[in-house]
């Protein structure tokens, strides 16, 4: 398929205002807890107080007797559920364990009961009356606990975790200059502003579920399996998601519990997670401890890269936070060794969180690059240029496109890198120490196959449909632009509908992948279907002209050398068609490609650190991104802003803290788990290096949701080092660490 001509969509697409913007700003966008249902009931989940052990007994009498309570479900009376599969195992579930399966408790907050009542107030009150008595065992929540089961991580969605090139350890020892340090990142929680919400409505054996999810079709399949009904009986709807960042990718136990409760009470049930439950019941980013060793010649040429380390998983399942994923590809080095261990802890199953793998991994690798730069006395940008990988050192394939050098150069120019002193602590303004730091950013481009239907209506408008998701990325806006760009018509004529399993199949919205190629393909199908009929139909002025000679230009069909042109509506009318509908499915097979496909970028950060208080303020950010075609300059810029801001939070504030004795999360609120607020965020300058990438997909886009966060924490830490001379290798960078 041809790539969309630059003239049609533009290499940097118009910064069109969000088409769903007016709905959102008027409060009319309906999120999953907001659909009306007759005779609705409210469910509240009750979590375990302990992190390891068993329920000895559970007293539900008080709750059952409370006014307004309709049902209390525990492991003792839970109706049967067919065992589901985990996301990694081809299903949808975030964790393998079925909710309320038995009396075993593996993590604090694990559901031990669900209460259904006439009102939210009644259900919330009754939930507090449930009393469980436990047989408690000491939980294992820290890596160095001797009881913790440790084992090597083997694979990540079919890709081997361990990778070796040459003899890394030997090369490290033989290197003229080397750095070898440990970096740590804490457990982090996604905390989208909308907590997870599910509403289940049974009508006989037909089920409709309104669910805050990034994976509608997966959820449908999983519900059909566990409730033993055909998939065609299940409809899952999610029109708007109030933020996700990965935690709404897998299906968590509350979705099963809500659906189960609705069947049990024979009425619609709505369950909305509390903010506290967002820390214990919908996954998190795993804690990591990483060793990065780099060995280089005196000229800064890296000879050895070693990246080993540990992340945690749940006691009853496996999730690998693949922090070594980008390392083999990032820099040219003849010798490399990466591997990871997993440690089983009494925490809930970890899951994907914005740029899973790269986010903690690039913190370690890019901090280590800064340390090497100091050790070898070469500027951090120059060191990266010296070790620039022209081909993917891991696969040996050429990159489909890579503009990282331009990112480094433009970023350095815009931040005023030449003003940076290589000597830490040498710039001061009053009580504040100033510093500059930088880091690389990267994220792979992945494709998941998807479907899209296209409809040309008699009035000349177009409708594209695919059951993908709007989680703030601007999906309906960007897809409308892509459709209009291919068709060559104004975007006002195009509508894109999403968020419902009644629409054609779309995959999980994750990994920065969406359905752009399917929309583009459907638009091409509309053109092909019409040109075929224009070629064949006696009603057509182009009758008898071979189809390939009929071209579409500027939204009109024409034949080279002829002056006559036909719009889409003209074609419909001439062919006496009331409308035209097409179906399209993508057929990606990334593994078969002989190109390495990645986005790249660079972050440049300025910080000031109060020398007496240890307060760190980020005062400026310049982020330069190379992501192929930028479909909508405005929404893409916002995606990068969002990534950078979450990265600043990661660098300075965010940590989900577990009490080492009880295994409970101690900061389960937005008042104690700090995320960046408006006052924390300085001006963020985003620049795009436009790339034409003809290999990657028909629209030349690489995805942009995740790359923005990668490298940010390292850039901040490197700037803090430049300001203070203190190297903080354990996030977040808090005042206590600066004063140790």
């Amino acid at each position, binding site marked *: 398929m041809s790539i969309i001509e630059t003239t049609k969509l533009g290499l940097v697409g118009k910064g069109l205002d969000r088409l769903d913007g007016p709905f959102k700003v008027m409060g009319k*966008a309906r*999120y999953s*807890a907001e659909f009306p249902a007759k005779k609705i009931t409210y469910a509240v989940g009750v979590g375990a107080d302990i992190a390891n052990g068993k329920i000895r007994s559970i007293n539900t009498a008080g709750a059952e007797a409370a006014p307004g309570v309709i049902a209390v479900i525990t492991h003792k009376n839970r109706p049967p559920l067919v065992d589901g599969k985990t996301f990694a195992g081809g299903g949808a579930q975030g964790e393998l364990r079925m909710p309320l399966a038995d009396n075993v408790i593996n993590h604090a907050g694990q559901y031990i009961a669900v209460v259904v009542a006439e*009102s939210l107030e009644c259900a919330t009150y009754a939930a507090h009356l449930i009393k469980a008595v436990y047989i408690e065992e000491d939980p294992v929540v820290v890596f160095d606990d001797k009881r913790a089961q440790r084992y090597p991580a083997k694979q990540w969605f079919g890709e081997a975790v361990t990778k070796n090139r040459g003899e890394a350890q030997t090369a490290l020892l033989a290197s003229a200059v080397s750095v070898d340090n440990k970096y740590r990142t804490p457990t982090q929680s996604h905390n989208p502003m*909308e907590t997870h919400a599910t509403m289940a409505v049974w009508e006989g054996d037909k089920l409709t579920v309104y669910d805050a999810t990034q994976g509608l079709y997966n959820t449908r399949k999983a519900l059909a399996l566990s409730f033993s009904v055909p998939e065609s009986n299940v409809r899952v709807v999610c029109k708007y998601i109030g933020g996700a960042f990965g935690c709404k990718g897998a299906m968590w136990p509350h979705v099963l519990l809500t659906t189960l409760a609705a069947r049990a009470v024979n009425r619609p049930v709505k369950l909305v997670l509390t903010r506290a439950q967002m820390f214990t019941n919908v996954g998190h980013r795993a804690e990591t401890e990483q060793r990065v060793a780099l060995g280089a010649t005196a000229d800064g040429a890296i000879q050895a890269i070693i990246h080993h380390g540990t992340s945690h998983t749940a006691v009853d399942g496996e999730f690998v936070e693949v922090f070594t994923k980008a390392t083999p590809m990032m820099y040219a080095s003849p010798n490399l060794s990466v591997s990871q261990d997993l440690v089983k802890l009494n925490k809930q199953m970890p899951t994907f969180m914005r740029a899973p793998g790269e986010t903690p991994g690039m913190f370690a690798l890019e901090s280590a690059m800064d340390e090497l730069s100091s050790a070898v006395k070469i500027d951090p940008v120059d060191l990266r240029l010296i070790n620039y990988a022209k081909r993917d050192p891991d696969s040996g394939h050429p990159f489909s496109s890579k503009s990282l050098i331009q990112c480094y150069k433009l970023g350095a120019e815009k931040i005023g890198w030449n003003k940076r002193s290589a000597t830490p602590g040498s710039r001061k303004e009053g009580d504040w120490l100033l510093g500059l730091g930088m880091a690389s950013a990267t994220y792979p481009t992945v494709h998941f196959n998807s479907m899209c239907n296209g409809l040309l209506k008699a009035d000349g408008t177009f409708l594209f449909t695919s059951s993908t998701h709007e989680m*703030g990325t601007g999906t309906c806006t960007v897809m409308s632009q892509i459709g209009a760009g291919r068709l060559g018509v104004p975007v006002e004529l195009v509508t894109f509908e999403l968020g419902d399993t009644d629409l054609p199949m779309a995959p999980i919205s994750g990994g920065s992948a969406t359905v752009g190629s399917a929309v583009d393909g459907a638009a091409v199908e509309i053109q092909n279907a019409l040109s075929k009929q224009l070629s064949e139909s006696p009603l057509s002025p182009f009758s008898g002209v071979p189809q390939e000679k009929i071209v579409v230009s500027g939204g009109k069909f024409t034949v080279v050398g002829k002056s006559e042109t036909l719009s889409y509506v003209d074609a419909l009318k001439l062919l006496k068609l009331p409308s035209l509908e097409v179906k399209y499915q993508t057929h990606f097979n990334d593994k078969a490609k002989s190109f390495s496909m990645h986005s790249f970028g660079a972050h440049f950060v300025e910080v000031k650190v109060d020398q007496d208080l240890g307060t760190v303020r980020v005062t400026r950010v310049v982020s330069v991104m190379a992501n192929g075609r930028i479909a909508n300059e405005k929404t893409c810029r916002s995606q990068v802003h969002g990534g950078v801001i979450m990265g600043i939070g990661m660098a300075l504030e965010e940590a989900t803290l577990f009490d080492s004795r009880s295994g409970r999360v101690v900061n389960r609120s937005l*008042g104690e788990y700090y995320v*960046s*607020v408006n006052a924390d965020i300085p001006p963020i300058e985003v620049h795009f290096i436009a790339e034409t990438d003809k290999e990657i997909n028909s629209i030349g886009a690489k995805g942009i949701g995740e790359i923005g966060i990668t490298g940010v924490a390292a850039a901040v830490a490197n700037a803090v080092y430049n300001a203070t001379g203190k190297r903080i290798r354990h996030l977040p960078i808090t005042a206590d660490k600066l004063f140790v």
Partner: protein
Amino acid sequence: MTVNGETKSVSIDPRTSLLDALREYMGLTGSKKGCDHGQCGACTVLVDGRRINSCLTFAVMYQGQKVTTIEGLANGDQLHAVQQAFVKHDGFQCGYCTPGQICSAVAMLAEAKAGCASAVTADLAAANVTLTDEEIRERMSGNLCRCGAYPGIVEAIRSLAEA
């Protein structure tokens, strides 16, 4: 109570928060629940023009009072100036914190006009407050946005402060 100019009469549990009364009993789901603890600002509504966290207060306390929610700001399909500015400057992504941000911004602009100082105001006695970016950021920090739309929010409010 009067909500968006309309008299609303509901019979509810006295434990019902103002936010839940709006969302669950009046069908006004524009105000959002992000934390239910007054920590995120997604539930911000206006009571007699002042911004409050509707999750932190009981509905029964507002009998006879005037409440304005996000649904009451536009005039039909004609967006309020703050709503327009948010769309133009991309002051949101997922849209979930947005109703709270916008209600907060409407009240905040009025507070600044009335000369209310903030933690970063240099001259506490000054009759007029200039809404610098620093002032806007400080005054909007009770409204969290996890998508990170803060730059657009500041731009949107700045465009109105300058107007």
